[in-house]
């Protein structure tokens, strides 16, 4: 593996999200709050979602972790905002398929910048970093229902 291969992991758009995370911070009021950590590495995330009538009105995250986990969280909050919960869960399923290296059909759902994380599938040790925020989202939604 050379630095060229590293570039398949650390795509420019990932670095951009890492450097300037979107939706970082916390939400006020009646929101869903999920804390999740990756016990093998110590990464942690707090995800907050404001859900109204089955739609994710707003989402913010805070936490500490590597470039992949933080960029993934930033991208995810962008992707799920304004979506119906059922679609957010579909996205999550697609995302984990993508991490398994499977071809995905997004069925017209906007995958946004997340496709940039495709290269993570080639770095098995880093897949858990990328999926951490998605697991937090699913946990939040499932606990609510």
């Amino acid at each position, binding site marked *: *593996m050379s*630095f060229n291969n590293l570039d398949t992991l*650390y795509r420019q758009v990932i*670095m951009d999200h890492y450097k300037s995370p979107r939706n970082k911070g916390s939400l006020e009021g009646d929101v869903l709050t999920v804390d999740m950590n990756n016990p093998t590495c*110590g990464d942690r995330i707090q995800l907050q979602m404001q859900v109204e009538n089955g739609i994710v009105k707003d989402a913010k995250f805070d936490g500490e972790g*590597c470039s992949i986990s933080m960029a993934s969280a930033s991208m995810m909050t962008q992707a799920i905002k304004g979506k119906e919960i059922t679609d957010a869960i579909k996205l999550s399923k697609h995302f984990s398929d993508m991490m398994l290296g499977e071809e995905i059909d997004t069925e017209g759902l906007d995958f946004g910048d997340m496709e940039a994380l495709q290269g993570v599938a080639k770095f098995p040790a880093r897949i858990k970093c990328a999926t951490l925020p998605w697991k937090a989202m699913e946990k939040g939604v499932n606990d609510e229902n």
Partner: protein
Amino acid sequence: MDLHAIRQEFPILHQEVNGHPLVYLDSSATSQKPRSVIEAVDSYYRQDNSNVHRGVHTLGTRATENYEGAREKVRKFINADSTKQVIFTRGTTTAINTVAHSYGRANLSSGDEIVLTQMEHHSNIIPWQQVAKATGAELKYIPLQPDGTITLEDAAKTITANTKIVAISHVSNVLGTVNPINEVAELAHKQDAVIVVDGAQGAPHMKIDVEDLNCDFYAFSGHKMCAPTGIGVLYGRKTLLENMEPFEFGGEMIDFVNLYDSTWKELPWKFEGGTPIIAGAIGLGAAIDFLNEVGMDNITKHEQKIVSYAMEKFQALDGITIFGPQERAGLITFNLDDVHPHDTATVLDAEGIAVRAGHHCAQPLMRWLEVTATARASFYLYNTEEDVDRLVEGLLKTKEYFGDVF
């Protein structure tokens, strides 16, 4: 010590990883295995495999002789009085859990104290938390100095007349701190407490003399000292072990079994319920032979040379934080500014360099260091100054790669 010849004994080191010659700097997690250990395990399975302590047949006798022969090698290696004091376990974790369960739970009650340090590995924290919960005993921690060492003044203050157990690592797996076991043992004994030493990072790297250390229990793992995974040792003082109940019950550890009650074998077998890790013990015996041939003092000296060289190189780098004291065992835990250790480890891996990144099973210590994770390079008898050069080069590349980001 002929470094080239030693490296030749480790087949795994001679390979390319991601297009570069492998530089293995994760021996504190697990060490690599020399040919003689691999062959000892292989030969046991090819020629002698049988259960121990029961077969009348020839293979059974051979397996038993080899298994008990390995115990004698361990006894000599740590200078224990008797093989009765050498209990084979699955590793350090099982060894400490055995003491926590069979000594801790049986002897502690509300008002008693268990003293630890703030640098302990999870395996020397959680068993004691469980003892405290079960018995009502209280956990106390000897605090750390800014450089990650403890002082004997603090130890003396923390260990009181209520202290029944002092559990302390010989060498910190994160900071590289070498603790003054002998002096802490004296403080513990003055208060009639026993001292349990987590020797996972001690026994592989320095000459261990349990009499000199004056410890009551010493636990270590084979896989960090050139032996296979799944084998470890609990050393204990004979009078203590004799008065302890077994931790696991079943085959191999019994004397006489009735329908409603049973009696136990004598030491050390009463603590070895079930078919033991025979091949692992034989592998550990071979590892001890190998380490003895090189010489434990030579190994310590070599690691000191490599770690001093690495410290010098690291301290010349900009934008790096090194954790732990200047004088240390053969490992360096560090972080590059603005680069998460996982990212550091991934870039290094692309260069064929294996380091550990994460919390190193020491979350309370990570919180004390005010980080969530760190990177760690750890050295063993087969590492070279060239390995350190490659690491430093890799770190410079990491900074360059991530430098564009910030």
